[in-house]
């Protein structure tokens, strides 16, 4: 027996895995045929489409449509080949598992990182190169047929956007593939990637037709950040044991209920002990997320002030002159100063928090932060406009917002932090438990904070908003 060589260096190991798969793809006509079609035939079809569209719109004196369509088709030509990367990535681990070739691979001394990155590279290389080639073919066609040379910054932007989109799709698909037992299950879960990416492409097309190409840079950055998050999540979750040991994708509701119950109760025997646990353990764990939410909300207020300078309201819109009794009567008509109003405000706020939670749970908490920060942006916008109109923003906001905001904003921040923690739990869960277990534990922690603090605080805030704020506002602003 000979001495055991040192383990393979990171990049070499990853490339070894990728190279084998790329070579394998090169022998599979089911992958080669669509790539060849989308790389060579499809760009030529797009050239024809561009020519026909430009000729058509020029006839009606709307050349701008043609001008905007040509760069958009550049993006489309790049997107189609990279869509194949999704198919390859989805079967990267699940397919090997089905073909029973995974165990020999997992027993090699290749590290988790090498295996994972190797699989990602294998899914990326061929489709991305095909996309680049497609873009080149389309661009060449444009030059030859329409004498239209794509500006270099636009070309770079489209190439980067194509690459970043492929990265996101592959990073997400490899995560799915490494967590499912079959290609079928992976394909079913692929809608979590396909739907957001489809929405993104629609957004990108709108931006391109709008002509705001600089906005696309932000999308590139956002996609790269998302890819990095997904990559980190995938490597963190990559577990040889789970890959080999998981046999069934059966929903075990009894187990789900047990995990949630245990984590929600946290071993407390009574309500007092439960609250003690909430304040001593759950709340301190939430503090970093709370800090981040505070920063985002502060930034949101700043954005509101900035927006006020950009899109200033006419000063007359901000004039507050009315009969105090009439204001109060109008408020009563709207439901203020009445129990039904309290219920309405509370249910409204709860709906917003629940919507933010659902969105946040599947977007690493990002959409929840966007949703919860929006009211703060609006308040900042109004404050900015008041200041620009020469009114006392402090007095107006102090009377109209501050009384209930003193309770509502901490509740919203806490909700945001709880959602953020829940959404981020999949990015870096502690080792030793399955992703499902972590996600359920995250949900239970979110539920503890919601039930224990957020909902009671929102109830108090709604009471203040309905019964107290109108009286203070009328007294301060209308002298009633």
């Amino acid at each position, binding site marked *: 027996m000979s001495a055991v*060589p040192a*383990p*393979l260096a990171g990049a070499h190991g990853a490339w070894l895995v990728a190279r084998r798969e790329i070579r394998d793809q090169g022998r599979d006509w089911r992958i080669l045929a669509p790539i060849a079609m989308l790389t060579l035939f499809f760009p030529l079809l797009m050239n024809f489409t561009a020519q026909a569209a430009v000729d058509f719109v020029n006839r009606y004196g709307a050349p701008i449509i043609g001008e905007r369509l040509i760069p958009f088709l550049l993006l489309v030509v790049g997107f189609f080949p990279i869509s194949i990367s999704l198919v390859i990535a989805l079967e990267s681990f699940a397919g090997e598992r089905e073909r029973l070739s995974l*165990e020999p691979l997992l027993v*090699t*001394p290749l590290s988790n990182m090498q295996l994972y990155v190797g699989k990602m590279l294998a899914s990326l290389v061929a489709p991305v190169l095909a996309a680049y080639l497609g873009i080149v073919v389309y661009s060449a066609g444009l030059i030859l047929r329409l004498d239209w040379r794509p500006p270099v910054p636009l070309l770079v932007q489209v190439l980067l956007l194509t690459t970043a989109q492929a990265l996101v799709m592959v990073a997400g698909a490899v995560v799915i593939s490494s967590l499912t037992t079959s290609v079928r299950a992976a394909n079913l879960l692929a809608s979590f990637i396909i739907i957001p990416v489809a929405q993104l492409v629609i957004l990108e097309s709108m931006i391109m037709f709008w002509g705001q190409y600089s906005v696309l840079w932000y999308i590139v950055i956002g996609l790269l950040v998302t890819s990095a998050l997904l990559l980190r999540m995938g490597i963190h979750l990559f577990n040889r044991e789970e890959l*080999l040991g998981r046999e069934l994708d059966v929903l075990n509701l009894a187990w789900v209920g047990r995990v949630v119950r245990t984590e929600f109760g946290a071993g407390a025997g009574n309500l007092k002990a439960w609250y003690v646990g909430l304040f001593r353990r759950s709340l301190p764990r939430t503090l970093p997320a709370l800090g981040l939410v505070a920063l985002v909300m502060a930034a949101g207020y700043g954005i509101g002030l900035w927006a006020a300078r950009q899109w200033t309201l006419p000063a007359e819109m901000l004039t507050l002159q009315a009969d105090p009794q009439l204001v109060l009567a109008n408020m009563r008509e709207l439901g203020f100063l009445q129990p039904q109003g309290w219920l309405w405000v509370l249910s409204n706020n709860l709906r917003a928090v629940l919507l933010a939670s659902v969105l946040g749970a599947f977007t690493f908490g990002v959409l929840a932060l966007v949703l919860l920060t929006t009211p703060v942006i609006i308040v900042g916008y109004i404050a900015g406009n008041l200041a620009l109109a020469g009114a006392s923003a402090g007095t107006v906001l102090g009377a109209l917002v501050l009384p209930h905001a003193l309770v509502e904003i901490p509740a919203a921040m806490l909700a945001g932090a709880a959602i953020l923690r829940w959404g981020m739990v999949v990015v870096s869960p502690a080792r030793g438990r399955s992703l499902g277990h972590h996600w359920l534990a995250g949900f239970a922690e979110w539920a503890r904070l919601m039930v224990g603090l957020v909902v009671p605080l929102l109830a108090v805030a709604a009471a203040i908003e309905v019964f107290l704020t109108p009286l203070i506002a009328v007294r301060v602003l209308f002298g009633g």
Partner: protein
Amino acid sequence: MTEALIEAVGLTKDFDDFRAVAAVDLAVGPGEVVALLGPNGAGKTTTIRMLASLLTPSGGAARVAGFDVRRDPDAVRARVGLLTEHHGLYTRMRSEEYLAFFGGAYRLPRGVLQERTTRLLEQFGLAGDRRRRLGEYSKGMRQKLALVRALLHDPPVLLLDEPTSAMDPASAFQVRGSIDRLRQESRAIIVCTHNLKEAENLADRIAIIRGGQLIATGTATSLKQEVLGRRQMELRLARPLDGAAGLLPQGARLVASGADWLRYETEDPRDSNPRFLRALGQAGIDVVTLAEVERSLEDVYLQVVGRARPSA
């Protein structure tokens, strides 16, 4: 005493609420082959996977080639040759490419890889097929190539799950010969198999696992003695017994008899058989045959795993 290359103490594996392997103790030294037997779902593959650092033990400990399976999984994997239950080949590749890929994963220098590829393919009769795609290989050829893959990095420890399951008799014979040679090269080898004859011929020790628990270990002979009792001899005479049973020497006990035959059990056949034959000769009783009653590992296995063997 030579240090064991595989050493498991209280090795346990739980999958949620299910205990797949329960407190298995096992030691395999260099140059030793242990056959791991047991019904389907007994925990053989799970045990093998834990020893290959593919599964993390829930309890107990195991060291393989001097490395802890939990703490040094990469070092363990670099020193283990695992033949998986399913060959799991990449069917679009050729055997050369396939072995080059795994050689790369084990970081074998090019020259070493080429030498081993050539030698192992020849040893297993696959040299003539090295340019063919693996999809064109027969089941047996695939199994042999999977074994070559497991041997490629020259590991001191081999874990072989059903090494001859898909093979024709000639190929199986060839593989058994290879395993024997590997034993002579001082490797520690665990073979999981349902082929009890193969286990008996190949293994130095047998370990029987059922419901995740190791329920019997020992050499084939010791297990037979332990499970089936003392060795039995059958005597066949030319004529009816004529009181031959009364001539049985001390230490031998009559088990059964017929008109011209009798069966007895004895602790030490080397002592009791010659004495019995002498006594029969002196009594003028003609002996046709005296032979040991064949007791197979299958008898032991069936008894141990609790399934009654249908009577002959």
